[in-house]
């Protein structure tokens, strides 16, 4: 009862934050860039979940999407290309009390940082990961990315990309310990918000791939999907998302999918047209690496002293008058 009262007192004093509290610098993304939609959804999430800005960290790599932390009024770490995952893992391991988000792009995550991506899934640390997948390198001016479609003409593939695109969903779902996999599209803001919120609330590595438009280098790529809502497959389930009546009026192509069903999730992930939108997989039972490793274990000078002395005892030669103290077996 005492704790319940304490809880009430705390809540009375809690500060609540407005949307502006999370708005940092003015975004320098192009007009019509999908990053803007993601930023709006994330700022709304921070407000609705009332995340303390000083306890929230956005970590990114390099690329258009990785400018994201600069536009948040929280702590941010704009890192180096491909290394957002290990940077964020270090942050989380040192400070499990912080809310840590990762913003990464298709080049950052699926190309230069691919090794870290695979292992980040396996670590299953409590991170909310947003893959801004615009299917092209934007900041370096139009090169093919691992998710660019076959035939895509870019500065490095002037006669068209020859390889098949990598599917980030199937890759993630193929790795041991995947615990949350979802997909959104930048042109469905309500779904996008709901997905990101579910991702945030999942304790573990929440991987959200967001298919987004690049108005500069791939302006027409998603027009067929925009014009034909039937080419979007909305996933619904009582344990997943339940779209509003408004969404359902436009997006009639819906499918009941239990996010606990990994085999079905992989099957859905493999089908790229229609684009699946919603929660493909969610398993709350997979332990987090930081919990397994006892992150945030308290340190004190006394504890360090005791630990050091115990170690030094193993290797100490005592003065000869103390030679009665022969080394002791551990």
């Amino acid at each position: 009862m005492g704790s319940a009262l304490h809880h009430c007192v705390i809540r009375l004093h809690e500060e609540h934050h407005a949307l502006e509290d999370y708005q940092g610098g003015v975004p320098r993304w192009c007009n019509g860039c999908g990053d803007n939609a993601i930023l709006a959804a994330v700022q709304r999430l921070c407000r609705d979940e009332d995340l303390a800005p000083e306890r929230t960290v956005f970590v990114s790599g390099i690329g258009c999407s990785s400018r994201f932390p600069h536009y948040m009024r929280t702590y941010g770490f704009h890192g180096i290309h491909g290394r957002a995952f290990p940077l964020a893992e270090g942050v989380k391991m040192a400070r499990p009390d912080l809310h840590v988000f990762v913003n990464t792009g298709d080049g950052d995550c699926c190309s230069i940082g691919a090794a870290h991506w695979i292992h980040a899934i396996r670590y299953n640390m409590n991170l909310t990961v947003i893959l801004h997948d615009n299917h092209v390198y934007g900041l370096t001016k139009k090169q093919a990315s691992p998710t660019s479609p076959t035939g895509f003409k870019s500065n490095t593939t002037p006669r068209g990309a020859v390889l098949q695109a990598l599917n980030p969903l199937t890759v993630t779902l193929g790795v041991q310990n995947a615990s949350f996999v979802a997909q959104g599209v930048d042109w469905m803001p309500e779904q996008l918000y709901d997905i990101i919120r579910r991702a945030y609330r999942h304790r573990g590595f929440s991987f959200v791939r967001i298919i987004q438009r690049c108005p500069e280098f791939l302006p027409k790529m998603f027009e067929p999907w925009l014009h034909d809502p039937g080419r979007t497959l909305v996933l619904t389930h009582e344990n997943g998302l339940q779209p509003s009546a408004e969404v359902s009026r436009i997006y009639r192509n819906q499918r009941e999918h239990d996010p606990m069903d990994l085999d079905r999730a992989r099957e859905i992930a493999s089908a790229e047209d229609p684009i699946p939108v919603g929660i493909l997989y969610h398993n709350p039972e997979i332990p987090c690496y930081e919990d397994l490793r006892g992150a945030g274990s308290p340190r004190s000078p006394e504890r360090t002293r005791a630990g050091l002395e115990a170690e030094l005892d193993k290797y100490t030669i005592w003065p000869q008058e103390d030679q009665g103290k022969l080394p002791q077996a551990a």
Partner: protein
Amino acid sequence: MNDIAALERPAAARVAQELPEHIVEVISDSGEGAQRCGQSLAAIAARSGNGIWTVEIIPAEIQPPARSVAGASGIRIRIGARRVTNGGDQTDLAVAFNEQVLLGRVKAGELKKGATIILESMWRDHADPAIVASYTSTVTALRESAFHVVEAPLEQECRKLVADARKGKNMFVLGMLCSIYSLDLELARAQIALIFGKKESKIIASNVRLMEAGFAWAESNLDFKYRIPAQKITEPQVVVSGNTAIALGVLASGMDICAMYPITPATSASHYLSECFERVGGLVHQAEDEIAACAFAIGASYAGRCAVTITSGPGYSLKQEGIGLAVMAEIPLVVVNVQRGGPSTGQPTKVEQGDLLTSIYGSHGDAPKVVMAVSSIEDCFYSMITARKIAETFNMVVVVLSDASLSTAQQPFPRPAFSEDWLAPPIDQTPVPEGAKPYDWDPLTGMARRFVPGQPGGMHTITGLAHDRMSKVAYDPAINEEGLRARSLKLAALQKTLRTPPVYGGDDGELLLVGWGSTQGVIEEAVDRLRARGKAVSSLHLRFIQPLPSGIKPILQRFARVLTIEGNWSDRLDDELIDADNRRYSALAMMLRSRYLVDVDCWSEARGQPIKPGSVVAAALAKLDQPVATEV
């Protein structure tokens, strides 16, 4: 004369000969336990009050072919009446489990002329005639080269006690060596109990019996016995390897997180830390690769206390971009590089001092960082505490260079007395005053207070892009230079706090030897020998190389000649194409020449072996023979 019959002389004839020091080697195939035998001998000698230094001889493979020159696995132990600071010159006594592993050491000139060799004799009766031929011809050749070869039936004797004699031989040899060096059997028994402490008591008992049998065999079969006078131990001493000392230093420094990826010869530091770190609230993260290990440490440092990443050459190369990020964003970070032979995969288990310049100048752009080099086992421990403090005080990357020689070498040093001053303060979570800037560079020192996540009012985004005092991305030319200036000034601010290192020997003279890293003991021993011969030679040893402390130039100028002694490559002037215009100097010589405009010469070798004091003496004598260079 040295046949088996001669060995059956009565024990009463053995009177221990007193020696100031002796160098002993135990060499075997990989997996036969020579290193454990040698480490135990060293520990027993140290407990008796002798000075010791151990050097491990490690093959690159886990299971190299048996009876091969390349597969030699072993250890050298130098035992002295006084403190020993290096592995010395050549071996006085070698115990070899077969003649092939011995040959490599003989060919490399590691054995002293006339040295005693105790050789496993079972190969003489081997079923394979080729082995018998190899063995007998080697023994004959060794005797012709004046080695004192004693053939000993090691396995045969062990089989009287245990079924698998190959595994127990090392403890039998330990007993032999305790007899030869007149060491206390009670200490030997206690040492065995310590090393097999995790195993069942019958394993300890069986090993003790083997050791005792070796002792008894030596007492009744060998006609030589030594005693190296010991000094009374007045202060508690610890005996650990350099890598263990690094791990203990990490623990004592108050760092919380070590991120690493397995690499020789650094990994044993992380092994040991993995054992003990969690008991004090720390943890070792084995990352998916070296880049991730560096980034993980940077993330952890950014969010709380300074973290450490421990690696060796190739891993150090991979971390460069991450190191540049830490420099640019001013995140404290300690990077330990246990150097090995390079470039590329090089010689993973061998010593080299090849990474000095890459440590100072590594990462693209102007990336000032602190570079320290540890000079002894004790220094491995304290350097970690110093490195963490500097990293957090200046928000800088501190690179600590060790090497493959120190990584496994053991030497006693006074037991550290824990001080709370060693530890990092608690993570600052106090509110940041309104208007405070995340990079408020001090105009004098370049230093700025760091805001850590969790501090209200301190929210900002750090970036590897050029940035202003608010941490906002900036392409303004003046702002770019402001940041460069601040990051560079921090090195000068640190430099002002460093003490001039002491000169060993005399204050001035004919020749100054300058070294860095693991060679301190070797160089100082060479100076002692040279001064005993009346040569006016001194030495200077550098722990901080970036920045170099003040006061070094006047020291260099007090000597007629200056020569660096380094374990890395420098071009040799006797090569036809090499001349003063194109000679590539050793790393430290290049640093000193460019900074002080003093004509510093260098002597270096990169043979993968620790430099010997005798080699340094020879190099110094050759340099003394050269005329003093005149001012150009």
